[in-house]
């Protein structure tokens, strides 16, 4: 079998790839046409502004760029590990989303000859539209600027931005390859075994004390060393190598994308063909509605996959880092926010085109609303509890102050996230089916808006309870939790009241 392209095939392949790149432009314009220009400018300006602030402000803070021992040098020492952490985060995000997010959904593009290369490049462009990615990227930029100081931060930031692009492109290529393996016979088991083995290896490295020496000798060190001296020959070489890596990863990533596209999505197909034997009739209307809603959540491939990554990932990080209870308190907010982004921010989309029929059933709208709230809340609670259960293994037994703060934080962020998700679901329903492992409940820009708002509100809440776990007393924590919880609860109740209006329900159910 020939393994090299013949002289007649090469021009054909190159023409096809050029066309794929041009198609990316068409899809971007198609996407942009559905957005309000003002909103794009506002959001774009916001993110560019924060990025510039993350680059410039830390460089002029007191102590920035100090050559002797201090925080600046510590940050530079940790930068190779942070670079590697960013690579790992991008990889997990890409693998969990089955090769990256869709620029335009598969269902909408089914009739068009869109190349997997276009799909690959689109997913690459969408990778930054993710709160975790953005926060990590800003942290990297800020840490590097502070470490390098006012004289060297500009040159360094160019390198950091390049590394962020390289890590994202490499992660994308690996994610396509993993997705391809997953679509092979026994591929899913193989991927799970590799994930478990990687987890066990990491745990062994940590427990045997070998992790720190390993982190000190990561290959990312070479890249960071090339950035610390400002503009120089070494800096130019680093940029040159980085650019070569970026071009290679972006180009090579199209190959596994093509290979994966030729294989059937086994996990989705299995989920659709698996029999679900009938169960006895529930006793109440609400129990019946909850059963259907719960099935819609747990039978969805992207939601199930997202839950695993979201709940286990932070838990393992907490375990490896031996987080204390006051630090663990930050996790439920993070996990609940991520969980809501799997479906709850567009919660009515679970019914898909069945929403119209369901609305024609003689059931009190309040029952339908309460059931949806219940199903969202239990999903987010399960995800957060798994994280806490893993994370607390090395945290020891909490004292009364820590336990009160942990329970309060868990409950308050849960109500907060569910209230926000139900409000958005009602205000802006999007017709998505969450069938593909790559599907998201809302378009990319809406998702970034949701994730930013959720991250901001839950982080503030978690920080309050984390502080109370260290310095507060249960007598203070409980009233604070009650006040914050009641505020979110009242917003949830208001959304529920609005749902009783038939015009509101009609607008939602006719969207799908």
């Amino acid at each position: 079998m020939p393994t090299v392209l013949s002289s007649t095939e090469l021009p054909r392949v190159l023409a096809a790839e050029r066309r794929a790149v041009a198609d990316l432009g068409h899809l971007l314009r198609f996407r942009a046409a559905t957005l309000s220009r003002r909103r794009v400018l506002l959001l774009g300006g916001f993110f560019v502004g924060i990025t510039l602030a993350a680059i410039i402000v830390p460089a002029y803070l007191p102590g920035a760029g100090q050559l002797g021992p201090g925080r600046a040098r510590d940050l530079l020492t940790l930068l190779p590990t942070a670079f590697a952490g960013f690579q790992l985060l991008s990889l997990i995000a890409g693998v969990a989303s089955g090769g990256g997010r869709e620029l335009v959904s598969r269902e909408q593009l089914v009739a068009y000859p869109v190349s997997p290369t276009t799909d690959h490049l689109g997913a690459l462009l969408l990778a930054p539209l993710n709160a975790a990615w953005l926060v990590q990227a800003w942290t990297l930029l800020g840490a590097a600027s502070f470490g390098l100081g006012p004289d060297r931060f500009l040159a360094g930031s160019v390198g950091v931005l390049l590394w962020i692009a390289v890590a994202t492109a490499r992660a994308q290529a690996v994610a396509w390859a993993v997705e391809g393996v997953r679509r092979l016979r026994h591929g899913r088991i193989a991927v799970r075994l590799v994930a478990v083995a990687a987890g066990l290896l990491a745990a062994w490295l940590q427990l045997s004390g070998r992790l720190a020496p390993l982190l000190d000798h990561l290959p990312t060190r070479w890249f960071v060393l090339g950035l610390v001296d400002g503009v120089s020959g070494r800096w130019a070489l680093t940029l040159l190598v980085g650019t070569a890596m970026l071009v290679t990863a972006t180009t090579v990533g199209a190959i596994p994308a093509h290979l994966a596209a030729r294989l059937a999505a086994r996990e989705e197909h299995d989920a659709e063909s698996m029999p679900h034997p009938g169960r006895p009739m529930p006793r109440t209307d609400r129990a019946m509605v909850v059963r259907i809603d719960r099935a819609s959540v747990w039978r969805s491939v992207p939601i199930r996959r997202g839950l695993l990554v979201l709940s286990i990932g932070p838990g393992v990080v907490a375990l490896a880092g031996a987080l204390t209870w006051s630090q663990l308190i930050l996790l439920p907010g993070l996990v609940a926010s991520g969980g809501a982004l799997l479906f709850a921010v567009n919660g009515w989309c679970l019914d898909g085109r069945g929403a119209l029929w369901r609305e024609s059933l003689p059931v009190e709208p309040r029952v339908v609303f309460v059931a949806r709230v219940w199903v969202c809340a239990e999903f987010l609670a399960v995800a957060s509890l798994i994280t806490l259960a893993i994370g607390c293994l090395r945290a020891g037994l909490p004292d009364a102050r820590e336990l009160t703060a942990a329970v309060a934080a868990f409950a308050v962020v849960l109500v907060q996230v569910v209230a926000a998700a139900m409000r958005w679901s009602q205000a802006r329903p999007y017709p998505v089916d969450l069938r593909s492992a790559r599907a998201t409940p809302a378009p990319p820009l809406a998702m970034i808006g949701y994730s930013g708002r959720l991250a901001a509100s839950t982080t503030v809440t978690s920080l309050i309870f984390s502080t109370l776990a260290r310095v507060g007393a249960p007598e203070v924590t409980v009233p604070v939790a009650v006040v914050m919880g009641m505020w979110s609860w009242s917003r949830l109740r208001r959304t529920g009241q609005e749902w009783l209006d038939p015009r509101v329900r009609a607008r939602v159910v006719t969207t799908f």
Partner: protein
Amino acid sequence: MVEVRGLHVRFGEVEAVAGVDLKAYAGYSTALLGRNGAGKSTTMRVLAGVVPPTEGEVRVAGVDVRRDPLAIKRRVGYCPDVGGLVPRATPWEHVQLAARMRRIPDWQARARELLERFELGTVAHRVTTGFSHGMGRRLSVVLAALHEPDVLLLDEPFDGVDPIGVEATLDVIADARARGACVLVSTHLRELAVEACSSVAVLRGGSRVATLTARDMAGEEGARAYRALLD
């Protein structure tokens, strides 16, 4: 049984229904015919209690849709025009949900009989995501007819359905008529409308332009008459 006077439905700037008047009677089946965007589906949604009217008076089974939509939903069986199915629920779960909400006694035998009649028995426990369009339409008709409603609303029930499914749907309509139900069938397929219904209301641009007997709409003459009404 179904009485509509001066019905208007607006979605923002768009007027989907612009003054429809309609009457349909118990024991008869009435077809709503018209081009795409004529307002058929929106009218059906109002009759099903799913979309509230913007203006006009709508009474279904003697109940005002504005006053008591829940009572209407109890009396009506509705097959929506698109999909109509929860993607990750099985046909059996759909039937169970409908039976629970409608308090149907001894629903299992009837559900099995209908699923078999529409050749869905073998896929009763598979999620509907993978269903073909025709299978989805057939299941939607089953769900609408399950509780033997007083008013049966079928929106595009023949769309993409194979001959066996069409025959089963025609049987469901005949059964409903025989037990005295009022049947409304919205379709753009004139020949099937004539076969299934006793009278035909033609909608154009969001309002009713004519009501004829099915006989007037049959054959070549009927096709010409229908064409003239659409222009």
